[in-house]
Each structure stands twice: as structure tokens, then as C-alpha cells.
């Protein structure tokens, strides 16, 4: 065994020890946490459940693994934290909403704005503050560099923000927003953007929840009307927002995809446990479940490689489009299998569990739209990995 093998071996043993201790802690606290296994009835209860579970995870120290000490963590590798989320989900708990946003935005905030991260992250990790991510706009979805929300810098160095964001997950209930705004001219495209961290309880902010087809109000539009933002709220450089966004996007492909994988695995496991004992005799059900599991296994294998590469500080680049496509395939295959196997209950059931299946089914449809639609990912792979002729070349 050479030195690096020895290090890996010891790191694996340490991970296993933490994961085993975590499983024991879940068992010990099962009475205290039992009510969180029930589906939440609305978005307010969903937020309360999320905050409560996160507070428990923080108190036990579980959620602090892998974050730098300056932002309230224990240091070390983030992969053990990711694996804790999988164990949590497979025990039937919903991974806290707070964490989805933190796992995407947190690493970029910690890297590009360490002082801000030291101030804001501990309360977020305790579940006291919910963040959201403000990128998309009505005219800037897949074409993010077209965004128009403006931040104008005054003589004192501080900013005034005006414009509109849309499709913001948790937007109507969040306390803070990681906001991408235009500080250059409209023609400056990706060169004139800046990332900032903005309080959502200040003056000039109006929020409207958007009711989704399934009925849940988990996303929102947010309007900014001359909202003052101090200079020290900037993440990274002024006009350097694109670099922060691209850095952040790697974690959206790595950490976020892994957490969605864990949540999707918990849905498949719930499906297996809800199905009638003789369901395996039905070839249609067996094929649907087999397909769902294969897509999930593919996603898990891929995202674990990506997590390892991210934790080794490798730049993963256009390869992350593969992860994004595998994520939407797995989510949709698993929820389609649920609909196929539990069809009648999901269609006519009025139990909260049935409603949760419906919500999850709708959410799985969003998976190939948000964060760069499936078509965008295919184009990135065609251009940057397969080096196929560009779509614009030679006409049209």
C-alpha cells in the first residue's frame, strides 16, 4: 500500500465511522424526529420542517463536516456530508430545503466572499436563515447572459438594484438571495454581471408566489425597486459575476445533483415499500422499476465521481452536462415508475402521501428545464465534447 492509498484508506474508515455514528444518532432521535416523516401539508409547514431538521443536524455537528472552520464548519472533505444526506433520505426524511440552496451557493460564497460567508453561513447552517438563488429573469432563462436586473453603483460605492427575477425556488419565503445583476451595459453580456448577497426583508422588494400545475407554491417572482445594497455585499469582483456563477454551477451539478439523487432514491424505496406484495409478478411494473433503478444507479455512479473531483479541486467543466442530463432522466424515470405502479392511488387518492407523489411527479418534470434545459446540455456536449459542427455554421 503506497502513501496515497494509505491516506485514502484512512479517510474511508473515518467516513464510515461518521456515517455509522449518524445512523445511530438518527435511531436515538427517532421519537423526537418522527413527525418530520409525515408529508408537510403546505409550503409554510415544509419550511418549518426543513428548519427543524436542519437545526437537529447542526446540533449533532453532522452538517458541519467539510465546511471551512471560518464559516462554522469542522473542515475536511465534503464527501462525507454528501453521504450523510443519502443516509438521511433513505431513512425517509426529506433533505432540508435550506441545504439545497446552501450546498449550491455556499461553496462559491465561501470562496469569493470569505468575510460575508463567515457572517452569514453559521445562521444558515443552523436553519435560522433560508437562502434562495436569483438568476433567471422573464427574458433570461436558458440565455442567462441576457439578464437585465440592474445594479447602479453610487459615489459612496454602494448599489441600488432594480429589476425582476422569476422561477426563484423558495423565493416567497427566503430571507436572503444570492443575486446575479447587471452592472455593465446590456451589450456587455456575461462581462457586465455582478453577484451579490441581498436581504429580502428590506424596502423596495415585492414577492409573488407562483402556483405550479401541481398546486404547490414553492417558486416565486421577486421585484426589486431601487433596493439599496451595500458594497460589502458583493460576492467576488464587480463585473466578475459570471466567473462566480460558473463556479457555483459546478456545485449545482455536483452537490445539488447528488442530493436530488438521494431524494430520488428515497422515492424509489418508498415506491418499493408501498407496492403490493405481488407487484413483481406484473411485467410492466418490473420493467418500470428496473428502468428507474438503472437510471438512478447511473446517476449515483456519475455524481460520486464528480463529487470526488470537486473535493479534489478539479475543474469539471462541460462534463457536468452529463450529470445534469442523468439527473433529469433518473428523476423522471423514478416518478414515472411510481405513477405506473401506484397509478390509481396517485390519480384519485386524497391522502397527503398521494398528494406528495403528485408534487414530486411535477417536480421531476422541472428537472429537465431548470438550471439549463436538457436541450442546452445536449448542445454543450455536442459543441464542447464531441466537437460537432456548430448549429449556426453554414446557414440558418
Amino acid at each position, binding site marked *: 500500500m503506497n502513501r496515497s492509498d494509505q491516506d485514502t484508506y484512512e479517510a474511508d474508515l473515518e467516513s464510515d465511522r461518521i456515517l455509522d455514528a449518524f445512523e445511530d444518532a438518527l435511531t436515538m432521535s427517532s421519537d423526537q424526529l418522527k413527525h418530520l416523516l409525515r408529508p408537510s401539508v403546505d409550503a409554510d409547514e415544509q419550511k418549518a420542517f426543513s428548519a427543524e431538521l436542519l437545526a437537529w443536524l447542526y446540533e449533532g455537528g453532522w452538517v458541519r463536516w467539510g465546511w471551512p472552520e471560518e464559516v462554522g464548519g469542522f473542515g475536511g472533505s465534503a464527501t462525507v456530508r454528501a453521504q450523510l444526506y443519502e443516509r438521511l433520505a433513505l431513512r425517509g426524511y426529506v433533505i432540508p430545503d435550506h441545504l439545497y440552496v446552501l450546498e449550491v451557493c455556499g461553496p462559491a460564497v465561501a470562496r469569493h466572499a470569505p468575510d460575508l460567508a463567515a457572517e452569514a453561513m453559521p445562521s444558515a447552517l443552523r436553519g435560522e436563515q433560508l437562502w434562495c438563488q436569483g438568476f433567471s429573469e422573464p427574458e433570461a432563462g436558458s440565455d442567462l447572459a441576457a439578464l437585465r436586473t440592474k445594479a447602479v453603483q453610487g459615489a459612496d460605492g454602494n448599489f441600488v438594484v432594480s429589476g425582476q427575477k422569476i422561477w426563484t425556488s423558495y423565493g416567497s419565503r427566503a430571507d436572503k438571495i444570492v443575486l446575479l445583476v447587471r452592472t455593465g451595459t446590456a451589450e456587455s453580456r456575461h462581462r457586465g454581471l455582478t453577484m451579490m448577497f441581498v436581504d429580502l426583508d428590506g424596502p423596495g422588494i415585492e414577492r409573488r408566489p407562483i402556483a405550479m400545475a401541481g398546486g404547490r407554491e414553492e417558486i416565486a417572482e421577486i421585484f426589486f425597486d431601487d433596493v439599496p445594497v451595500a458594497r460589502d455585499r458583493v460576492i467576488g469582483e464587480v463585473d466578475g459575476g459570471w466567473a462566480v456563477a460558473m463556479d457555483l454551477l459546478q456545485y449545482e451539478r455536483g452537490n445539488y445533483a447528488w442530493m436530488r439523487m438521494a431524494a430520488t432514491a428515497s422515492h424509489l424505496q418508498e415506491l418499493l415499500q408501498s407496492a403490493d406484495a405481488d407487484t413483481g409478478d406484473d411485467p410492466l411494473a418490473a420493467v418500470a422499476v428496473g428502468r428507474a433503478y438503472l437510471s438512478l444507479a447511473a446517476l449515483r455512479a456519475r455524481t*460520486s465521481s464528480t463529487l470526488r473531483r470537486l473535493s479534489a479541486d478539479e475543474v469539471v467543466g462541460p462534463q457536468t452536462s452529463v450529470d445534469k442530463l442523468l439527473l433529469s432522466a433518473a428523476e423522471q424515470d423514478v416518478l414515472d415508475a411510481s405513477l405506473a405502479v401506484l397509478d390509481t392511488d396517485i390519480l384519485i387518492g386524497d391522502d397527503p402521501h398521494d398528494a406528495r407523489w403528485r408534487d414530486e411527479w411535477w417536480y421531476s418534470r422541472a428537472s429537465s428545464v431548470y438550471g439549463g434545459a436538457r436541450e442546452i446540455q445536449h448542445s454543450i456536449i455536442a459543441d464542447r465534447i464531441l466537437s460537432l459542427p456548430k448549429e449556426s455554421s453554414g446557414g440558418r
Partner: protein
Amino acid sequence: MDADTRAMLAGSVRALLQSQPADLAAGLAELGWDEVVADYGATAIELLFTEQGKAGVASAALDGVLIAASGGLNPSAARQSLVVHPFGSLASSVGSGRLCVDGVVLGEPTVAGSYVVAADNCAAVYAVPTTSVAPAEPIAGFDPSSSLSRVRFDIAIDDAREHERGWEFAIAAARRALACELIGNGRAMLDIAVEHVGQRHQFGRPIGANQTPRHRLADAYVQLSAARELVQIAYVSDRPWDATVAKTYAGYAVDTTSRACLQVCGAMGLTSEHPLGGYVKRFRTLDALYGSWQQTMRAVGEQLLLARVIPRGVGV
């Protein structure tokens, strides 16, 4: 294995495969392959089968993988054994005191040795002298260049010698090797199609500048990449379940790839002079060995519905 060693070995194996040797095993022995396997284990197997897939050639190397993984035969007996592989819906079974065998062997069954047969997948493994049963029938079929022969016989179980245990792990090793070969085959098809749509022009622009061919080939790339990750997991865990998952997904990915490549290469891809057809035929053979992806995908679903729990994944 470091990148330089890997590139060097891959080059030697590629050159050997492209020379289309009558006896691949002898050619590998000349390369000192046994030592490579002793030094690098699974990585060497993965490399050999990936290159075999890329070259689009057939060999009986799979028999060596099964026999080595079962660990029950001495080398001289191993060389005289022909494994009877399940193929599509062809399988072997035991019942009412009889051993009913139906499957394929790889390469020419000229050796006067034994057939090694796993009945009911791997509940028991038997050795049967080749001379004591009907001769194998050479198959042309969909993929003549794979040189398969069909072996069918039905004998009293007492006339078969019960063989070594551990065949479940042998089949897992075979599935991992087949998954590697499938991925190599799929990568070769994808390379052919990428080249084709970049070169051929219609309406004044390359075919590959149109969105549909671009997206179909990107989709194939995604699935082949995932298949590669699943094979790595299967080698790390050494579990038969992960080997089945890897081979099933690889078959699914290469099916997607062959459909996409056949479509974008148009009529040229359907001709005998175009290289694509040979890979498509070989893919069908590889997929059918140890159960097609559609058969094993259903089996995976049945097992999960029975177990009612998802098996724990390998640590990150």
C-alpha cells in the same frame, strides 16, 4: 496503472486485435498478458475488453475470464474447457434427473475437452466431455463474424461431473468484461457517426450542424459515460448485483447509440462497405450474452420489488 502504461498496453492490444489472429490467447501469451493480469488484475481485463469492443472483433477471451474468476480449474484443464454461455432466451437447466443444455460457445469447438455448463444460471456447474454429446452447430445468423456455435444436448445428470463452486462470481466477472466490450463497441460507433455527420453536407451545411443529430449523438455520449462509471463501481464492489446493473445499463446505452448512429449515417451506414454495420451486429451478440438488457432490466425490477429495499451504494 498509470496513464503511460495504459496507453502502451492499449496500443499493443489494439495492434494484436487488428491483426485478427486465429488464436488470440496465443497472441496475448506472447505479449506476456498473464503477467499484466497478475500485476493489474481488473484494470487489465477492462482494457482488453474495451479494446476488443473498439476493434469490433470477436474472440474466446471471455471463457478465460469466467474460468479464472471461478478459481476452480487448473490451467491445463482450463485450456481444454469451453464455456457454454446463455444467449438471449437460450439457457440450461436441471430437472427430473436430466441436464438440458442450450447455449453458445465462442470460437471453433475443435478442442477435445469439456463443456462447462452452469444450469439455472449458477445453481450448479457441470463439466461434460465434448465427445460424449452431439457436435456443436456453427452459427452464421445475424452476426456471422462472431463465429458462435450452438451447443444443445440433454443427458442424465449422473453422466455430468459436478464442477467448482463460485460460478456466480464467474458470471459477474463475465458481465463486467462484456460491459467493457459493449462500451468500447458503442464508443467506436459514436466516433464513426461523429466523423460522418461532420463530413457529409446537405443543404449547404454539414449534417452535424442540425440540432436533431447533434442531440441524439450527445444523448448517446451521456449514456456511454454513465455506463463507464457503472463498470468502475462494479469492479470496486465486486458484487454480482453491480455487475448485472453495469452490463444491463451498458446494453441499454449501446442500444441508444446504435439507433442514433444508424439514423445519422443514413443509407451509407446501412451498406456492407460502411464500418457501422459490423459494430451493430457485434453489439447484438454482446447484448444477448448473459441476457439482453431488456431481460435483465426486468429481472432487476423483479428483485427490487421482492427485496423492497434499494441495495446500499458503494462509498464515495
